[in-house]
């Protein structure tokens, strides 16, 4: 096994090294021709090429899809319908009540996603912050514990969803514990509150290690003498936390917030495997809605799904820009 991996590594890196040797003279000539300015173009080219073909073009195609109708899969066979799909998605009597909307499931999913992001991001920040504070103390085996919390980050979302479904289902591990404690077993994924909590909790479980590390890095970068100075001044601990720790952790908290927000809105795999969107539609999230409508469901409609994903991406970009601006102004500029 290892030799397979080893040879794979050699095979892969050898061409790269040769490539690097071969590129150099070409590049020197190119540099003579274009100056330093052309260099940036050269270094960007491979990434942008792949990026363009496999990310940008699909996004543009997606836009095209969103303006077509029918159930055909190939774009060429689909009739142009203009903004009809968007109109259908946005048609609603009362946006606070999804059932009054033409595409009630889309609005339900949007509402669920909003709630999910709200709870999950708060929980994520809280749990990661507490964990980071604890890991920042001088405890034995800190490296080990730091790794413990990081472990689930390495698992694939599908596995994460699967594991927890096995734990939370009627015949699952949690009910075994509950029964041993003399309580009534519950079907945890069958109640809208516990199922939603499970989706929030499981995704937090899976990703908190990553955020904890980011916050821990921030905590460790805070100079110790600041705390010593505060202690000399007799500053109460809560105040030290609020006035020293939090502000100095600002940039890292901003990173955590932005990333958690983006990932939260995109929640899919683990929740899909875990709850499938149920009970009813109470954990149906936008990405699942888009995936099912566009690809998986018996009621397939690629155009509608494409329109929904464009709306979602638009909201995300706006949210992120706002967030970045806010965090930049509060953190006093980019680091």
């Amino acid at each position, binding site marked *: 096994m290892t030799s397979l991996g080893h040879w794979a590594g050699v095979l892969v890196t050898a*061409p790269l090294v040769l*490539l690097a040797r*071969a*590129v150099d003279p070409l590049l020197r000539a190119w540099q003579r021709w274009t100056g330093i300015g052309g260099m940036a173009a050269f270094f960007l*080219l*491979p990434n942008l*090429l*792949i990026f363009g073909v496999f990310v940008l073009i699909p996004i543009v195609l997606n836009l095209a899809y969103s303006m077509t*109708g*029918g*159930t*055909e*899969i*190939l774009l060429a*066979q689909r*009739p142009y*319908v203009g903004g009809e799909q968007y109109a259908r998605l946005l048609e609603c009597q009362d946006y606070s009540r999804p*059932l009054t909307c033409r595409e*009630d*499931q889309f609005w339900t999913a949007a509402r669920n996603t909003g709630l999910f992001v709200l709870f999950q991001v708060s929980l994520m920040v809280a749990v990661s912050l507490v964990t980071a504070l604890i890991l920042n103390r001088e405890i034995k085996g800190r490296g080990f514990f730091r790794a413990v919390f990081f472990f689930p980050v390495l698992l694939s979302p599908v596995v994460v969803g699967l594991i927890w479904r096995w734990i939370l*289902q*009627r*015949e699952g591990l949690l009910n075994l514990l509950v029964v041993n404690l003399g309580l009534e077993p519950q*079907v945890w*994924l*069958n109640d*809208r509150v516990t*199922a939603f909590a499970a989706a929030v909790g499981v995704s937090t479980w899976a990703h908190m290690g990553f955020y904890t590390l980011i916050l821990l890095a921030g905590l460790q970068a805070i100079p110790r003498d600041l705390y010593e100075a505060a202690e000399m001044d007799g500053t109460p601990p809560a105040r030290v936390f609020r006035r020293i720790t939090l502000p100095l952790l600002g940039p890292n908290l901003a990173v955590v917030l932005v990333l958690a927000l983006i990932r939260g809105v995109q929640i899919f795999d683990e929740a899909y495997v875990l*709850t*499938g*969107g*149920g*009970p*009813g*539609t*109470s*954990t*149906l999230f936008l990405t*699942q*809605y888009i995936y*099912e409508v566009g*690809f*998986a*469901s*018996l*009621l397939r*409609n690629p*155009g509608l799904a494409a329109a929904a994903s464009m709306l979602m991406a638009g909201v995300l970009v706006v949210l992120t820009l706002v967030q970045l601006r806010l965090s930049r102004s509060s953190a006093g500029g980019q680091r």
Partner: protein
Amino acid sequence: MTIRTATAAIALALAAAPAFAGEVRIMWYSDGVEGEVIQDLLSRFEAENPEIDVILDNVAYQVIQEQLPIQLASGQGPDIARVTNLKEQAQHWLDLRPYLSDPAYWETNFGDRLDWMREEGSDAIPGFLTQLTLTGGFANATLFEQAGVAIPGEGATWDDWIEASRQVMDSQQLPAAFAVDRSGHRISGPAVSYGANYIGEDGNPAPIDDGTMAFAGKLVDWTSQGLMLPEVWVSAAGTTYRAAADDFINAQIPFYYSGSWQVANLSTKIGDAFDWVAVGTPCGDAGCSGLAGGAALVAIKYTQNPEEVAKVMEYLASEPVVREFSERTLFLPAHAGVVAAGGLQFQSEDPNVQPALEKFVQASTETLPASDALPAWRWANAYYGALVTRISQVMAGELTLEEARPLMDQDIADQVAAAQQQ
């Protein structure tokens, strides 16, 4: 630039593995052991026909559902595929008729159901059903016996069955009385038994009728009364399929409504834990109809080697092969000759298996015309999708059934409109 060129070159080298002459690729999915059985049968074929190289690509069912349609739409795909979405994709199937040595054999033995897989008005022979399925119920005989409740007999209605199951549930302190798989297909036979008819006079979907509402109403009531195991339907959104087999296997429910394909699964997993019986479909006002269905092996129009494909198909459709396949997989054969001859020796030591399969064969005679029409109907999936999506929302308490009714009609109408928007 060089990187790109290099990768492109390698990519071409790897990707462009053209269909070699004599190569036949079969895209296959498995619910149980049928992948191994078919591989075994194909190996034998290859031994006899060394010039044909048959490659079996075992895939997830998800691939058949989600990826194959896109491949087909772009004029690609395997040479043969095992599919369930027969009618909607009929335009992509190859008409084997010109390549077959004996088309009459196919018409005789598979003729009843060729309409399921060809376009309206066509006489093409695209393939054959690898198995026939029929929805139907299973009862945990041991649980009934322990509770001292008699298993309802012939002609028992759904209400009878649920009442009997409720008694078992109470007596044995089970979490629920019964469960139905989360699938629009599964509840359509019972709905037809209550007088439902999905198909309008013009062949387009009819509005949700009272028959459908009647059975849906019962399901919802049974769920709210705690009789129907809630999580199967409630804990998923959209059209996601969920089977309740595990709860039956685990003796958590005395009655389980699924279909003939479960026989092998139940046999493997229940083993000797309890006795179980197939009971057909309970009756409604209009009859006691299950719903037939099945997976078919079809040839794909875009194959480079139609001759070889036909040869493989002829082999797989031949009577002894069909017989052996059915006997080993515990599937119901869809081959008229095999069914007529009878005497299938299902390869199982489980005493529950043979009677169960025989029960399904018998129940297949009780289906109603409204049910028989569904497998070959273009909008069946749209109907199933709307039913399962909305009824589970009702069960979850998000809608009332009355509110759901126009939503289902809307969902179906949307789908029809989308498909006709060309």
